């Protein structure tokens, strides 16, 4: 029975040391009995043939034997509470850091550096927050606690969705992409357009002229929009709170876009330039400002429709409101 014993040892080796002795005794006996039974029908049956024909890979067998609730790190009863706490913890952490980054950079001599350095601390802190939350839930799981907070549920706790209008996933995804690209552009990770071409000459040394606080506000708004788009992707229906947040964010966007559009000069090419490019700059500035006005108009339209939904939840603007 050496091979059978080796198989049983291999199976239990995947289990916690404390369980191995009893588990080994039980499954070794099981395998030996089964083998003895089969040998009665076929006396030439070797242990190897028996194992090949009847048993799975030791790790697979071990996995099947371990399908016991005590093997979960965070079991089914806590799983969704765990995910929900993790999401809340991550959102709060990111939000607090964003506020700290904006406040610290406004009071600092080197605003961008301060802003980046605070933001770069977010991933590390998120890991810590995740580890602490995981630790708490593992302790609850192992301590045999019950998710009693879920027992005290009342239907009145449900968040009422206004007009039951579903959130468009594609719209949220589009916003997410746009905000991410915007943020990456502001922090110089991506650059576009790289060059301005005129009169067979290419100018790479151009810059957008904006005050520092404006860049920081744009970065903060893009970061907020990334988080908000992700949140919308996890929700099914619009709620009053989500609409209000959209309206407030849109108003901030309209204000900042309006401010940028009112700047006398937005684009500047530095270094030696030809006459053509000097003539072209005012036209580029105008084009940029017109684009900004178009963007602002789209945001205004979105804001107005959100406000109308808020004031009249059963308002139907041609789309299905189911």
């Amino acid at each position, binding site marked *: 029975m050496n091979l059978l014993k080796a198989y049983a040892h291999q199976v239990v080796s995947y289990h916690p040391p404390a369980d191995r002795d009893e588990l080994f*005794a039980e499954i070794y006996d*099981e395998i*030996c009995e089964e083998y003895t039974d089969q040998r009665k029908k076929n006396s030439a049956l070797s242990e190897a043939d028996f194992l090949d024909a009847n048993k799975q890979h030791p790790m697979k067998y071990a996995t099947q*034997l371990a399908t*016991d609730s005590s093997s979960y790190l965070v079991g089914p009863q806590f799983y969704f509470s765990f995910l929900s706490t993790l999401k809340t913890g991550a959102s709060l952490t990111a939000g607090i850091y964003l506020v700290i980054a904006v406040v610290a950079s406004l009071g600092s001599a080197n605003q961008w550096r301060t802003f980046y350095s605070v933001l770069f601390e977010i991933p590390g802190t998120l890991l810590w927050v995740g580890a602490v939350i995981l630790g708490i839930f593992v302790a609850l799981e192992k301590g045999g606690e019950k998710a009693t907070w879920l027992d005290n549920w009342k239907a009145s706790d449900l968040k009422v969705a206004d007009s039951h209008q579903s959130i468009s996933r594609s719209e949220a995804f589009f916003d997410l992409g746009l905000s991410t690209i915007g943020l990456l552009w502001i922090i110089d990770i991506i650059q576009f357009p790289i060059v301005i071409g005129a009169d067979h000459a290419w100018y790479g040394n151009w810059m957008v002229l904006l005050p520092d606080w404006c860049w920081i506000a744009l970065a903060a708004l893009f970061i907020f929009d990334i988080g908000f788009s992700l949140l919308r992707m996890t929700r099914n229906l619009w709620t009053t709170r989500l609409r209000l947040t959209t309206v407030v964010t849109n108003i901030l966007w309209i204000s900042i876009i309006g401010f940028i559009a009112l700047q006398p000069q937005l684009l500047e090419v530095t270094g030696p330039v030809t006459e053509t490019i000097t003539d072209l700059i005012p036209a580029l500035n105008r084009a940029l400002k017109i684009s900004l006005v178009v963007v602002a108009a789209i945001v205004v339209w979105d804001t107005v429709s959100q406000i109308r939904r808020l004031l009249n939840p059963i308002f139907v603007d041609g789309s299905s409101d189911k």
Partner: protein
Amino acid sequence: MKIQSNINEDRSSSEIVDKLNLELRRGALLLAVLSQLNEEHYGYSLRKRLHSKGLDIDEGTLYPLIRRLEKQGLLTSEWRSDEKRKKRYYRISGLGESVLIVLTKRWRALNESIDGILGEEEK
């Protein structure tokens, strides 16, 4: 292409049936195991007993189930040495017997309802 698509459909439908069959069996196996442990059994003898009554159950399903039932206090177990090996004998507990009576009644009522529903569907 069409043959390949039919093969894939058959495979996926067979996977779904296998998964649902596992769910369907779960509650039934619990009742079967509890009911057979009014007599003392060790793992393999219990499997053989169930097999002789037309119900096959593999070790990967039986042992976790037995352990869970024991943890819930529905079974008791005792280690004994038999020939050259140690064996763990299981038996239904007092609590297990009461639970079995209630569950058997519920199983029969459920079975009757489901039979009625499925009977209507077949008509």
